[in-house]
């Protein structure tokens, strides 16, 4: 979740809050913002990625003024023609075709406002911009720009001074050697062409989505901005620009439209229009568990800064500002009604309606297995499904037949899916080598194998016994007792068919009624030695699905 640092004093003045600024902390959570930390007048807020307008104090204030009843209805946004145009090179079709622009005049960008504006830019890059691939934004000092502007396709040899550099770099150089080029270069075709924004004086304003030019750098005190947004989706480009429009307008700027010429087609940006969306008051009431009239619904929407064009019968026709592109559906308006109504006023409705509830058959059977193992004095452990290749195979002396690997695990300790519980149990014994013996542990969990190509997930029950005199006999006795207490039957044993980490000649495969159940035996001392376990260990692993099938079979036989 993205975070924003706010100064509650400035926020209070922006929302015309008259109480102590810290009092806002009681209100903020009910706007959908989480308080991650608060220290005096400074607070760090977490906001949802679908609300980039919350990336600055100005955007938050606009919404809070509605919820607090200071203002109602949509945030007023207007712009006049700036005379600035962008001409788009058709050669960028299929590369990064879309661009939009905006002019903002009369700003007083202090350090804090500049910082928050850059945070908003970064947030739009990460969220709706999909790490700049879909949308990227450039902010420029308008006084350094000589309109008209061209959005042009260039080759790798095009050179300019990138932001923060002293010498000209070629586009090719930036992509291969500059930190940002390496980070975001994948968004562009490797062989070019590459998009750049040039002004009429030939200055490179920006090489989207990688880096701006140094020439139009924005600093504290910059009073007029030229904003460019480029991307692969015109919708998302205009969405992003609308959030900037709201924020800069709230910061006190006068907005100016920029004309964008796609050949014969020309559009004017930013898009400050509203969408109509219809909401049934009955549906809102029913989903929220409230009894709201259509005019109640309209009033609630107004507090959530949603406009209302008209109310006809049960239907409220809402007007949604462009920057609220998170509102996609009638149910999103229902949520805005809840915000406007006020979440503190929504109380839980206790209702213990009847219903035939119960735990699943699998859980019930697994509880019976746990009880049986616990009755034998075993301590349950819970280990992870993802583990390391080293533990799963190397330390066990096993050769993987078809290991299942996670494609990009952040740690080698959680990379391979276990196909057996025994490595995990031995790991537990290893990490408890200093604890009192005897140690008898068991685990019931999922194991996954891909032998023969087909992925098979099944439940497994395994135990391990460790102490100075642990051996095959005790493990077999425990296994007999376990099976007898579950199924009232004694399994059969065969010296063949068992496997590592158990010792050949001191282990057996187990079956019951012709169905394979698993293996039991003594763990190879070489495995114990490499795990630092200093007492003998015997162990068993059983197919819990097979045990459950046999259990169901018994029940079937009795009922049949």
């Amino acid at each position, binding site marked *: 979740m993205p975070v924003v640092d706010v100064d509650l004093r400035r926020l209070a003045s922006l929302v015309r809050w008259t109480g102590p600024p810290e009092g806002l902390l009681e209100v903020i959570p009910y706007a959908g913002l989480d308080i991650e930390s608060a220290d005096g007048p400074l607070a760090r807020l977490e906001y949802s990625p679908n609300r980039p307008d919350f990336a600055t104090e100005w955007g938050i204030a606009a919404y809070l003024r509605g919820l607090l009843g200071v203002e109602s209805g949509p945030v007023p946004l207007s712009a006049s023609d700036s005379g600035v145009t962008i001409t788009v090179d058709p050669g960028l079709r299929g590369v990064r075709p879309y661009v939009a622009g905006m002019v903002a005049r009369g700003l007083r960008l202090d350090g804090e406002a500049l910082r928050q504006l850059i945070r908003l830019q970064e947030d739009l890059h990460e969220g709706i911009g999909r790490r700049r691939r879909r949308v990227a934004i450039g902010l420029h000092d308008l006084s350094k720009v000589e309109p008209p502007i061209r959005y042009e396709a260039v080759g790798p040899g095009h050179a300019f001074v990138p932001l923060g550099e002293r010498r000209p770099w070629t586009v090719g150089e930036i992509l291969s050697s500059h930190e940002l080029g390496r980070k975001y270069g994948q968004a562009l075709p490797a062989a070019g062409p590459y998009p750049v924004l040039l002004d009429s004086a030939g200055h490179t304003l920006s090489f989207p989505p990688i880096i701006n030019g140094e020439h139009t750098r924005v600093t504290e005190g910059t009073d007029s901005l030229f904003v460019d947004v480029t991307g692969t989706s015109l919708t998302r480009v205009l969405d992003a620009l609308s959030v900037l429009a709201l924020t800069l307008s709230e910061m006190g700027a006068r907005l100016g439209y920029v004309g964008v010429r796609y050949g014969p087609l020309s559009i004017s940006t930013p898009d400050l229009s509203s969408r109509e969306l219809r909401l049934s008051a009955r549906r809102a009431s029913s989903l*929220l*568990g409230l009894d709201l009239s259509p005019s109640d619904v309209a009033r609630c929407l107004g507090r959530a800064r949603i406009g209302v064009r008209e109310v006809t019968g049960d239907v409220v026709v809402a007007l949604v500002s462009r920057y609220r592109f998170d509102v996609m559906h009638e149910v999103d308006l229902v949520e805005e009604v809840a915000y406007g109504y006020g979440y503190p006023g929504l109380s839980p409705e206790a209702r213990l309606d009847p219903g035939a509830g119960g735990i699943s058959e699998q*859980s019930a059977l697994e509880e019976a297995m746990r009880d049986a193992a616990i*009755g034998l004095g075993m301590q349950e452990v*819970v280990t992870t499904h993802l583990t390391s290749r080293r533990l799963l195979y190397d330390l066990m002396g096993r050769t993987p037949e078809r290991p299942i690997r996670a494609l990009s695990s952040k740690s080698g300790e959680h990379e391979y899916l276990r196909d057996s519980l025994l490595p995990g149990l031995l790991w537990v014994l290893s990490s*408890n080598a200093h604890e009192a013996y005897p140690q008898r542990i068991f685990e019931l969990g999922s194991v996954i194998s891909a032998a023969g190509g087909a992925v098979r997930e099944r439940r497994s029950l395994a135990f391990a016994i460790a102490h100075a005199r642990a051996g095959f006999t005790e493990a077999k006795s425990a296994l007999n007792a376990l099976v007898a207490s579950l199924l009232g039957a004694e399994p059969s044993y065969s010296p063949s068919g068992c496997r590592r980490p158990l010792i050949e000649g001191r282990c057996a495969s187990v079956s019951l009624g012709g169905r394979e159940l698993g293996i039991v035996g003594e763990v190879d001392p070489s495995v114990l030695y490499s795990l630092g376990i200093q007492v003998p260990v015997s162990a068993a692993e059983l197919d819990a699905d097979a045990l459950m099938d046999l259990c169901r079979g018994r029940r079937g036989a009795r009922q049949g």
Partner: protein
Amino acid sequence: MRRYRRVAIGGTFDPFHRGHRALIDAAFSLGDEVVIGVSSDELARRMGKAPDRTFGERACELLEYLESKYRDRVYSLHKLDDPFGPLASDPSIEALVVSPETEGRGRAANEVRRSRGLREVDIIRMDFVLAEDGEPISSTRIRRGEIDKEGRILEGAERGMGLGVDSLHPLERRVLAALRGSGGPLDVDGIAAASGLSPDQVRRAVEWLRSKGMVRVEWEVRRVAVPGPGARRILEEGLPEDRLLRELESSGGELGIPELAGRLRMDSQELSASLGRLSRGGYVSISRGRVRALRGGPYSRISLDLLRRLVDAGELPLDGLSPSEASALDELSRRPGVIEVREVRRARVSLAEGAPALQPAAGSAEEVTQLTPEDISTGRWRSLRLSRLDVVSPVPEMHPGRRHVITEYVRRVREIFASMGFQEVSGGLLQISFWNFDALYTPQDHPARELQDTFYMDVEPTEEPPADVESAVAATHENGWRTGSTGWGYEWDPREARRVVLRTHTTVLSVRALHATRDLPVVKLFSVGEVFRNEKVDSRHLVEFHQIEGIVKSPDANLRRLMGYISEFYSRLGFRDVKFWPTYFPYTEPSLQVMVRVGGSWLEMGGMGIFRPEVTLPLGVEEPVLAWGLGLERLIMVDMGIEDARELYANRLSWLRRVPACRSWTWT
């Protein structure tokens, strides 16, 4: 005398007394190195002792002694936080020096060593060091002010009858029982005979009992005869008088005195004494140097019999003899070296008033520590006395089989939702992205779907999505389909939907269940299961954790009722203060997060909301569906006060074995 490499000894040493010194001296005499464990204050309290002085003070006093006496020897002092200390882990310790009081602890230590595969230590039991009054020196007595650290009786100390049977030494119990059995006073030998103890043991026990005022001892002075060095010769050869008479008889009844002396090889003094007695008794007459027999022997049968009894018995009391025996003894006593008469003092022991009553069988019974099956089946138990055990000393630990904390909570959560009318569902860990993401209206380029957040596995697709649902989901993503939504506005890729992931939430199970139950008007389901996130593990993030998932599908489902279900769930877990804040999830609208109050702070426990129509309609579900996914690990951590999430999966036996089963929800 040093037989061991390393010898251990342990105690609280509060105060450090003569008995302790004896144990330490013994340890140094037995071992090359001595390991001394001193109970920590905490341990001492746990073992029911309340040390007067701190560990530091106790250790210093000990050290002073060690440095003064064993400065040139190898020893080490250890603070004991558990009853065994190095004894439980040091394989080079070969022996443990104990007092009768701490012998039990030695056996327990060996149990522990056995269980860890260490060689058992030899237990060297030293007897109690006795105080002046014959009772053991003990810390308790010193603290009670009866004796000082050297075992000297303190003036005005309270002693005696107050002690009662329970504090008696086994020797004392047997002496008391013998006295009670005799009905009257006994001497040491009498008690020894009746109790089966050695006279030495009896004397020791009598001394202890006397000092406690439990027996009276009267000294009796008696004269006894004991055989002298010549007694045996008389018994072998006969009295000289009889030898003389026999010689006379074999020589025709008359012989000269020199001849007699030569034949009998008697010295003249013995010969003349014998002839004097024979002549006074009328057996012989003597005239002019010749002895003539008047009548035959034996001279004194009674003297011979008396002498035989005396030699057999070793002594005869003079006051028990008949008058003729008395005169015979008198006569014998006048012969040199045959008998001696001595005066002896003898203790007559009798029970004092108020001596405690004992079980009749107790004193004479054999004392055993461990009852055996044979003792019970043969009836031998009737004559056995079970020794009193040191019930304070520690015993080996025992570990029950137990559930893991996590599955314990899972079971509790299942009980709650089942009892609230929810049916449990379960499902696989591996899922195709279609169910895990696409059916939940998560766009295919959503950051949560990237490799760095989600575990994609290198396996072929495990299943095909149902064709009708797939086309509806595709259309919903692209243009909203018939859901009334704008959709995401991109081209949906069916291949992306078939990539296999480790499920990132249990919501995937709810979605599958919704599809499976689409013809039912009302559905209430829950599941508890593992989910996976490609995270860097730290104290707040795990790669694998559990979610508590649930849905309610019903025509009249609404947000306030959702809040009601969740409030009820947390209240049944013992969290009565619950509040809800709005939040955002891609697949629910409206969305809430639930906070529970723990102590003074509110903690976020999970998310919930009403599934978007973009989720439900493609599944064939028209009704609103309430859904939630709550954290399980968070709940456990809050409930148990665990700071680091990794603890839950560390499987530390020391924690799992000891964590109390009684928790906040146990009684709710």
